[in-house]
């Protein structure tokens, strides 16, 4: 259902042989959602999947397989078919166009409020690059955050949007951050790096939680605020942090029902019914999961940070200047999951000041301290394993069921690293971002092991999946 004025021209597309109307420029998955189509792909394990929760969302477009329906913009006449996770194109179509090398004093990875704050602090003093894999603004933008909308987006240094950083590599006095921008490979060199890579939205384990019609809070926010398309007409909101989206739902006049904890969803092509643990059944066509936000530890640990646990989340260990070593700083929700985007922004400014100070400039980061507010504190949470069907509840979008994760634990493997390898959790597309916390929870629940005693896997390059043809 469309809920506002659309950008772009109205175009005709075909999906599985059926003619539909959509808008040019909107992602395929959004255009199809607006037409009530939620089921787009088949997972490796043969499960029906949509585009908005976990896992990739490949479709076939004009005969080309494995097109990312969440990114590929719609154009007139597109002929779209459902895709499979294991599809690939036999014609080698991905080629790099060029390799460039750029030198800066400071590179900031992540263009959300923290990255923007850091860039504004630094860019007037030393050459700065701000790298963002999508568009500037991060979650603050898709939440239409008032504070964020009040700050101007100039004085950011050189901004590289739609540019995916591959990792942090140490090269003597310099740090190399290679990045992919379209078909271009850019090697950024700098003296300092700020990782402002933000947090990931928490997912939940329940029966059929991989079904089309389930949304991660960010996917729902994007559909509503960027493309003015409703996730559904009968929305259930679940999880411990409804506040990440309930304001937007109200603002856009979308009715929803808050069910703190979902036990099961059912449906044919996607969610039709939702069950809670009290025996209630709800008619629904969309479930938005909003269960906390957690620092994305992969960029920090890839850069060499150690991980600690407290207050319900894992975070990179940093010193008093938010450094993990002499080169790399962590800013914003990548370090602690701030409640307000304002806090992330000022934390970014503060870290920016620390960097300037370390580079020999006069700066006083502490002056921002008073603007940096609270971060989320949760308990670890638990997964009600005794009440769930273990074959139908998914810990991870790569078809890893609750059963597959519980098996090794029950066999006596209490090392997270081993459980990971035996269950294949945290080894797929998200590299643990949406599933690792569930394993931490399960291991704690079953063995009482303190998360600080767990051997947490480090992020590995590339930080986000990139195609071999661009690097080769």
């Amino acid at each position, binding site marked *: 259902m469309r809920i506002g004025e659309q950008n772009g021209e109205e175009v005709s597309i075909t999906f599985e042989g059926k003619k539909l109307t959509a808008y040019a420029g909107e992602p395929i998955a959004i255009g199809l959602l607006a037409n009530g189509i939620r089921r787009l792909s088949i997972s490796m394990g043969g499960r029906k999947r949509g585009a908005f929760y976990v896992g990739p969302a490949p479709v076939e477009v004009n005969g080309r397989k494995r097109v990312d329906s969440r990114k590929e913009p719609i154009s007139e006449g597109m002929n779209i078919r459902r895709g499979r996770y294991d599809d690939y194109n036999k014609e080698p179509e991905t080629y790099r166009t060029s390799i460039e090398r750029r030198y800066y004093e400071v590179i900031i990875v992540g263009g959300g409020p923290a990255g923007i704050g850091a860039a504004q602090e630094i860019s007037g003093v030393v050459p700065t690059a701000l790298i963002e894999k999508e568009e500037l603004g991060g979650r603050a933008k898709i939440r239409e955050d008032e504070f964020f909308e009040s700050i101007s987006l100039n004085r950011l240094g050189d901004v590289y949007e739609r540019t995916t950083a*591959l990792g942090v590599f140490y090269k003597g006095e310099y740090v190399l951050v290679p990045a992919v921008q379209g078909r271009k490979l850019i090697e950024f060199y700098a003296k300092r790096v700020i990782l402002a890579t933000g947090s990931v939205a928490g997912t939940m384990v329940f029966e059929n939680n991989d079904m089309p019609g389930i949304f991660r809070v960010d996917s729902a926010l994007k559909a509503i605020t960027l493309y003015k398309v409703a996730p559904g007409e009968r929305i259930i909101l679940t999880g411990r942090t409804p506040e990440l989206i309930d304001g937007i739902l109200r603002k856009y006049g979308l009715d929803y029902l808050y069910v703190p904890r979902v036990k099961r969803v059912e449906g044919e092509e996607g969610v039709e019914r939702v069950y809670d643990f009290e025996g209630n059944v709800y008619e629904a066509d969309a479930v938005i999961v909003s269960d906390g936000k957690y620092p994305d530890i992969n960029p920090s640990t890839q850069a060499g940070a150690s991980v600690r646990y407290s207050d319900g989340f894992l975070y990179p260990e940093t010193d008093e200047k938010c450094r993990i070593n002499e080169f790399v700083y962590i800013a914003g929700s990548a370090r602690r999951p701030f409640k307000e985007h304002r806090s992330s922004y000022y934390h970014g400014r503060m870290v920016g000041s620390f960097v300037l100070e370390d580079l020999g400039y006069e700066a006083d980061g502490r002056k921002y301290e008073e603007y940096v507010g609270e971060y989320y504190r949760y308990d670890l949470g638990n997964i009600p394993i005794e009440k769930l069907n273990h074959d139908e509840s998914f810990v991870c979008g790569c078809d890893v069921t609750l059963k597959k994760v519980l098996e090794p634990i029950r066999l006596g493997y209490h090392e997270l690293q081993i459980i990971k390898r035996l269950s294949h959790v945290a080894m797929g597309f998200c590299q643990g971002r949406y599933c690792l916390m569930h394993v931490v929870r399960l291991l704690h629940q079953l063995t009482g092991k303190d998360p600080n005693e767990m051997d947490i896997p480090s992020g590995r390059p590339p930080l986000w999946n990139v195609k*071999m*043809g661009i690097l080769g």
Partner: protein
Amino acid sequence: MCMKADIVVIGGGIVGVLIAHELARRGEDVLIVEKRYLGSGSTFRCGTGIRQQFTDEANVRMMKRAVELRKKYHEAYGFPFKQSGYLFLWYTEEEVEYIKKAVKLQNSLGVPTRLISPDEAKEIVPLLDVSEVIAATRNPTDAKASPFYALASFAKAAREMGARIMEYTEVIGIKRKGSSIDKVITTRGEISTGIVVNATNARAKLINAMAGVPIEIPIEPYKHQSVITQPIKGGTINPMVISLRYHHAYLTQTAHGGVIGGVGVEEGPTYDLTPTYEFLRAVSEAFTKIIPALRNLRILRIRAGFYAKTPDSNPAIGRIKEIDEFYIAAGFSGHGFMMAPSVAEAVADIITKGSTSLPIDRYDPYRFERGELRSKALQMGRNSFY
């Protein structure tokens, strides 16, 4: 805390676990001490391949026995193991002449390798670019296995037969009484024992020094990396494909569908296992030359493990005569996962019976001191054989 064990195996990788498994099977009292978690050194970062296509008799025989044993245990324990072959691609007449001799040797030892045409190679892996390939060698009985399930199955069976395993326990010293082993000192207490097996591969030199091994066994740790891509349809790349021309690349598909493999870019000696950008580039370059369609695949991650290398790329396996009793099985130079079952059998033989029928003379730890280096084992590394 003071513990006791008749035999202490230091190192909980595939070699250490299989040695302990074999000893436990023979009724010995054995304890594994592992610094981190089982498999955390190199086993869990290995390329999953099990190859018999070597160019010398001992390695061919050891690998053939290893395949037999692994097949037997695959049937008993149920871990995935697939004889999907190795496919070597050759690009020059010189290479083909050289490899013909190796094929003859392999055939004479019962390994059914065949020299095949580029077209036949393309039939086996249709995505291959064979435009520059002039011949290929294929042994259908070479194999691949998941290191995770294999190691976990052997560890479980070893435990059931009475072996003990201590993880997150680092050996920090070895106490001797004269020429005899007295105690292994760890971060979690001392272990009284009479027999130590050094199965630490990359860290073998450190353990040798702790035990006072009087000879020089030059095993150096080199960083080797591998890549995993997004999963694609199962059966797309069945064999382990080897192309020495393109950075000594090896690649295949895992049971989960991802393409796994590496190239011979190596760094060292070093204990650092940080994955590098240079590898990311090199592996992408090589893989997309061998199979152009891989251009379209997304890389999920790269990770590093050790090649614990000796000067001739053959391991050091045997008893250190001056110490009562100290054995070494280390320096596998990238072949530990594939060779482990027969190494375990040989080491258990010499511990329990004093000798073995397996050809481990080639791996005599004293050969370095005597300056009797072997011909180099055919290895996917920077030092090629031709």
